[in-house]
């Protein structure tokens, strides 16, 4: 793929649109497909989650993405991670990506924390020795209560699971770390520690994209911010300015968007 690409450019979104094609029924089945075929119908509803979004992000920055539920923040993050393909436009991502998305790191709750570290590392393409080398650092950083690391993850509290997931994601040594609401489960002390770790990553010219409905985390950790609404980019700039504009906007039509599901 020939592309002019500056070396310190981390992410480049070029007119990206992401549209989900969903059918009306929640779970697609043969029966409904046959019935539809018989009637000659095509029930496809298009859900435009991200509309014509463009931005560039350089290495060494922490970008916050804010917006109401359904603004397309999580969808955008999944596209940056290569999980969802864009419907239109182009996304360039320069570097090794590690994700910390809202569902955890695809962790298996039947396994112990230690086994999950191995599984998460293997999934992201590390070898067993590489994982072994990092496991102690990961466990130290997560600061789980005594003994929990060798217990199944279903016994963990939400906060403990979130801490371990964050610890795994930052220790995979990503060039780009994508975080979706993952810090909401941690307590104040861990949030502080996480913020310090993220600052350290940025110091090494790595890049973090942080998605949150909450303005607190964005204002604390980010040096750059994007405000999305209904899939569109509303504003890009200094986190304080973007947050001000966002809260002004929310004050006007807070009720209108509060019913939509997060996509």
């Amino acid at each position: 793929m020939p592309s002019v690409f500056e070396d310190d450019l981390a992410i480049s979104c070029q007119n990206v649109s992401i549209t989900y094609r969903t059918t009306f029924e929640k779970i697609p089945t043969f029966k409904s497909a046959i019935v539809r075929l018989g009637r000659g119908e095509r029930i496809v509803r298009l859900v435009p989650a991200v509309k014509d979004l463009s931005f560039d992000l350089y290495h060494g920055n922490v970008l916050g993405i804010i917006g109401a539920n359904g603004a397309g923040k999580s969808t955008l993050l999944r596209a940056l991670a290569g999980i969802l393909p864009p419907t239109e436009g182009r996304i360039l991502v320069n570097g090794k990506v590690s994700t910390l998305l809202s569902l955890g790191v695809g962790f298996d709750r039947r396994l112990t924390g230690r086994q999950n570290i191995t599984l998460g590392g293997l999934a992201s393409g590390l070898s067993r020795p590489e994982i072994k080398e990092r496991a102690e650092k990961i466990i130290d950083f997560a600061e789980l209560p005594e003994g929990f690391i060798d217990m199944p993850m279903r016994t963990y509290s939400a906060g403990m699971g979130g801490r371990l997931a964050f610890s795994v994601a930052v220790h995979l040594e990503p060039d780009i770390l994508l975080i979706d609401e993952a810090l909401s489960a941690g307590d104040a002390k861990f949030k502080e520690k996480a913020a310090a770790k993220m600052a350290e990553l940025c110091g090494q010219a790595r890049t973090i994209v942080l998605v949150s409905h909450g303005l607190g985390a964005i204002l604390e950790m980010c040096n750059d911010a994007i405000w999305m609404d209904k899939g569109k980019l509303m504003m890009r700039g200094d986190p304080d300015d973007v947050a001000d504009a966002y809260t002004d906007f929310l004050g006007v039509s807070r009720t209108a968007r509060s019913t939509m599901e997060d996509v």
Partner: protein
Amino acid sequence: MTAPSSAAPVPPQERRAETEFSSGVHVYEPHRAGLPKLKPYFRELWARRHFAITLAHTDMRAAHTATFFGQMWLIINPLLLALVYLLLVDVISGRPQGLWYFSHLLSGLFIFYFISGGMIQGSNIVVQEGGLIMNQAFPRLLLPLTSVYVAVRRFLPTLSILIVFHFLSGTPTTIDLFWLIPIFVEIVFFTAGLASFFAAVQVYFRDMSQFLPYFTRIWLYVSPVIFTVAQIKHKAKLAQLEWLNPLMPLLGNWTQVFAGEPVCRTGVAPSCKTIDHIQTVGVSYHYLAAGFAWAAVVFTIGALYYISRERDFAVRL
């Protein structure tokens, strides 16, 4: 606080990624149904084999942890299954079948349940591992291949039962038995193709997993499991299936090489009234070639269909 990580980021110009799963520059463009470059795809797939194996072992451990017999079920299950079919055949044919028939039946049944088990588990795995798909970018073909790996691991212990009955039935043990290895490889690829195909189909039609058990039941009856290859060839209705049913060459070769065929003292082979002795049946090269063709075609179509669809999975789950 941990010490700062020692590994400095590699300068970007030294990294040029070929797929979205490796490090370097990734380009994501609209391609809902296209194929990625296959060479780097399969290289990345291979690089994550330990992940697939770990995932498979997790599944297997979880399946039997709550039971009294635990891992023993891997042996008990197929034995009970064979008993059911032996009784069924005894009842239908009206007379007890000998040890030779039991050996033939077991060899066919176990390998058939390897195929159908891999296929049915594979068909569910994409939907089942939705969380993983929504959160990690990796070559998705790993998932159905994991199911096939689980099926192989479930099948291997049953080989011990097969070996016991092979000796009990009096089938001569010859060098020909080594042909079972290439035949098994054909069967594994064939199963992987089916698992991949149905895994992708299942995402679009969730009813698939309901149909599959009935489909496999019928398939069992028209394959050389309950009947021998010779019996199927003599049945006018089933004879045409020889080149239509991929399991005829695959399972036919397997059961014939494994169990041989009886030479009758009275009656007509293979359903003798009294058996004189068991003779070996060498591998059928026709069947070996046909099996290879089926495996290659089914694996290629299944895997390519799956890969062409896998980017759509995250939207559909």
